[in-house]
């Protein structure tokens, strides 16, 4: 066989002889492979950056929320047994109250008791049935009985149905709520009395939840995770609540990302460890405050009216920062009136009504932040990306239960903050979460075991007692995206390989065909077929090396250029999307995967060899004389 050096000498002359075809052979496949390499470098960089940012929040976890089928669904309200029970309780209550009232010698009007049932009126105006009146104490008691008889499936049941899907953890989140009272943030340490009783609580107009540390840890601020304050309830706030608390201006939805990021950075800096107070008042305390305000207004209005008779019992407001009870400014009631009120209080207490005012000042400490969950369709790029890749806890004030339980007055706090959860959540007081090691297990669990909760009625089978959803982040969707990207990338590699083979095959084929006369001359002066094959093999190798160098160079440059131009913007977006507490993280589009780059180079070599083989095999067998004869 011809010596390598001589073969290289003859092969290089072809590069110059067929300059245009050589350029096409290098340029087009090179361009295709460069695209592939650039895409690979960018994809690898993106993936690495995603993985880095996924250390934030829930993004590297596969959580599934399990919402139990709510006990207080339509069935309960229409249930005849429940309705009958409510009527029975109603009758018994009236009967008991009549006896008690007679015993205490006070008046009692049975008509003051709310009816347990409400009539439903059909389109024709005729009664079509009855429904429980949920504001009636008798109906509420009947519903309570119903809940006891139809308990929600708990975490034990979740464990059972999740077992085949290899779960790695189960968590329970307690739903909070203030019943029969209000909880108000004391802005600048002062209570806004006008808002007392208007709403259950304004802290900070979100629900309250107590979540285990496995769920809260990713959202804790670094400096706060290990700090302990026995007097302040630790809370993780959504960004919007924290902004409100700090008096920061809420940005417009179309604010530029740089402004958003600056806002978040400021939020993380300022929010860490800040404390605020809120005043809890039960309904009686709230009523007394309202009464004090109304009375003061009434008296001011009638200041010059000599006919005006002041109330016998006049309440006054406590000091604004005290969260104390309403003061009694004057009490002109007679002894008989006071005695009658005492009897009435005794009567009310006997039947479970709240009589005494309770108020308590609660201190809170911000220990973490969670991005706001988008509630509507995203309209900006960062909004869309955030909905795809962002991670957050619920739009709630989250109390890390492990931190709460360390507080000496944890039980008292729970009795205030978690007193009315079931009432406000259709009888659900807890939410459950299952964690899986990978997206497949989580996805399969959801697909197999979720139940579609109906407005009325319960889930179809006992095997599907929960409504299951991916929770906290789009890890499952991102895993799917990764899988799809890998599939698309493989297809792209295949397509590029086929195209490159075709292009190289055609161009090399043309070059070989154009070289027939030259081949014939070589054969005439002693070249063997193997020599001719060697020359074209070397030529193809040179072409392949050129394609590889061109593709690698252009691919690296393109990816590098892309990274240089977009990394800052991407970092900005990623910090927004992932709510990164580590603001030093950067999002880069450029990362080397030696194994895959090697694979592409190998693919180029394969393309070159395959591209050469067909035309070479076809041409090398030709009779050289035929080519000389054709030429002459």
């Amino acid at each position, binding site marked *: 066989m*011809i010596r390598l050096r001589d073969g290289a000498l*003859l092969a290089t*002359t072809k590069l110059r002889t067929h300059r245009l075809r050589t350029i096409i052979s290098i340029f087009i496949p090179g361009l295709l492979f460069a695209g592939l390499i650039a895409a690979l470098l960018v994809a690898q960089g993106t993936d690495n950056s995603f993985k880095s940012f996924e250390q934030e929040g829930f993004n590297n976890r596969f959580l599934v929320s399990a919402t139990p089928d709510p006990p207080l669904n339509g069935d309960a309200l229409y249930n005849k047994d429940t309705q009958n029970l409510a009527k029975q309780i109603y009758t018994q209550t009236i009967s008991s109250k009549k006896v008690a009232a007679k015993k205490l010698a006070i008046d009692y009007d049975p008509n003051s008791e709310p009816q347990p049932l409400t009539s439903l009126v059909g389109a024709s105006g005729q009664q079509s049935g009855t429904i429980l009146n949920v504001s009636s104490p008798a109906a509420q008691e009947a519903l309570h009985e119903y809940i006891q008889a139809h308990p929600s499936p708990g975490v034990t049941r979740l464990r059972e149905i999740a077992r085949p899907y290899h779960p790695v953890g189960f968590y329970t989140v307690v739903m909070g709520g203030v019943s029969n009272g209000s909880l108000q943030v004391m802005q600048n340490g002062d209570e806004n009395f006008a808002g007392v009783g208007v709403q259950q609580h304004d802290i900070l107009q979100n629900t309250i939840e107590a979540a285990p540390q496995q769920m809260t840890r990713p959202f804790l601020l670094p400096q706060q995770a290990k700090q302990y304050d026995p007097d302040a309830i630790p809370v993780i706030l959504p960004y919007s609540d924290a902004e409100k608390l700090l008096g920061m201006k809420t940005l417009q939805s179309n604010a530029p990302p740089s402004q958003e990021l600056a806002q978040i950075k400021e939020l993380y800096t300022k929010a860490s460890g800040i404390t605020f107070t809120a005043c809890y008042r039960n309904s009686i305390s709230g009523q007394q405050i309202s009464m004090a305000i109304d009375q003061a207004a009434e008296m001011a209005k009638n200041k010059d009216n000599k006919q005006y008779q002041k109330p016998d019992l006049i309440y006054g407001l406590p000091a604004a920062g005290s969260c104390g009870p309403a003061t009694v400014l004057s009490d002109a009631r007679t002894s008989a009136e006071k005695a009658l009120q005492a009897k009435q209080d005794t009567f009310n207490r006997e039947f479970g009504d709240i009589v005494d005012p309770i108020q308590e000042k609660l201190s809170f400490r911000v220990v973490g932040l969670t991005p706001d969950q988008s509630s509507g369709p995203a309209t900006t790029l960062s909004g869309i990306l955030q909905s795809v890749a962002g991670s957050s806890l619920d739009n709630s004030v989250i109390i890390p239960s492990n931190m709460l339980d360390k507080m000496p007055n944890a039980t008292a706090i729970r009795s205030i903050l978690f007193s009315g959860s079931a009432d406000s959540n259709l009888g659900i007081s807890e939410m459950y979460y299952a964690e899986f090691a990978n997206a497949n297990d989580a996805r399969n669990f959801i697909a197999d075991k979720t139940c579609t909760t109906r407005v009325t009625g319960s889930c179809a089978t006992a095997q599907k007692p929960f409504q299951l959803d991916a929770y906290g982040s789009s890890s499952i969707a991102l895993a799917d995206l990764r899988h799809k990207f890998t599939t698309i990338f493989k297809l792209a590699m295949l397509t590029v390989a086929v195209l490159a083979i075709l292009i190289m095959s055609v161009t090399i084929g043309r070059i070989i065909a154009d070289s027939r*006369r030259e081949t014939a*001359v070589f054969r005439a002066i002693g070249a063997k077929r193997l*020599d001719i094959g060697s020359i074209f093999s070397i030529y193809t190798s040179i072409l392949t090396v050129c394609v590889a160098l061109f593709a690698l160079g252009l691919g690296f440059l393109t990816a590098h250029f892309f990274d240089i131009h977009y990394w800052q913007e991407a970092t900005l977006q990623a910090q927004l999307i992932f709510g990164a507490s580590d603001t030093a993280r950067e999002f880069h589009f450029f990362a080397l995967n030696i194994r895959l780059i090697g694979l592409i180079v190998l693919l180029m070599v394969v393309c070159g060899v395959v591209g050469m083989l067909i035309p070479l095999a076809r041409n090398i067998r030709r009779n050289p004389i035929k080519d000389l004869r054709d030429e002459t």
Partner: protein
Amino acid sequence: MSPEELDRFLKRFNDDTDAAIAAIRQHARAKRSFSASPRISASRPVGKTLVSVRSLGKKYKVGRHTVQALTNVTCEVHEGEFLVITAPSGSGKSTLLQLMGGLDKPTNGSVTVDGVDLSSLSDSRLSEFRSHTIGFVFQFFYLQPFLSLERNLELPGIFAHTKRQERQARAKELAATVGIGDKLGYLPKELSGGQIQRAAIIRALLNSPKIILADEPTGNLDRANSVGIIDLFEQIRQTLGTAIVIATHDTAIAERADRVISLQDGAIV
């Protein structure tokens, strides 16, 4: 080649050919006295048989038609002989030359070169045999445009696996013989037509073949230049003892040959 280019080429070639012949003669005188080239009388063999062609026939297809290029041709070429195969265009002389050189396989009959039946050789062995025994000269020169003259001359040595130093020395020696020794680093496009033609001829000599097969070597040349080239062949034959077989339709060349074979419609007449 346009008519203008052809004119220019021929003019340059005429000048160069005269110079080349003078150079060869001078070189030959220095080496051994070969300036006087004795004419060998026509139709008289000068040595033992080098090529033996027996009952050779060749058919090939052109489109849907089969062409009988050669029919029952029998002839011989002897060592050191200057043989001309003459025939009108399309009469099979090139085909006969190619079969003699083992570039094509006969439909029937046999070709024996230097005692070796070419049909008994594999393709690879045939190439090897051809490399060392036969030199080809083509009408269109076929020099590699992007190789220097030196590398072009070396080509047969490359395929014969001759050592680099040896083939370079040989190329230099041959180039000097025909007066182009100072052009070794030039590309063909930098040479004149005459220089290119001489290069093509001495390229065939690189591996010291026993026979040179030249197909219409003067096909594009005028009379004076044709004579110059034939002089060159004759002097090579005289100097190196190489048998020369030229296929041409030019009957004037035949006058210079030791022997002439005439073909008509693929058969010797």
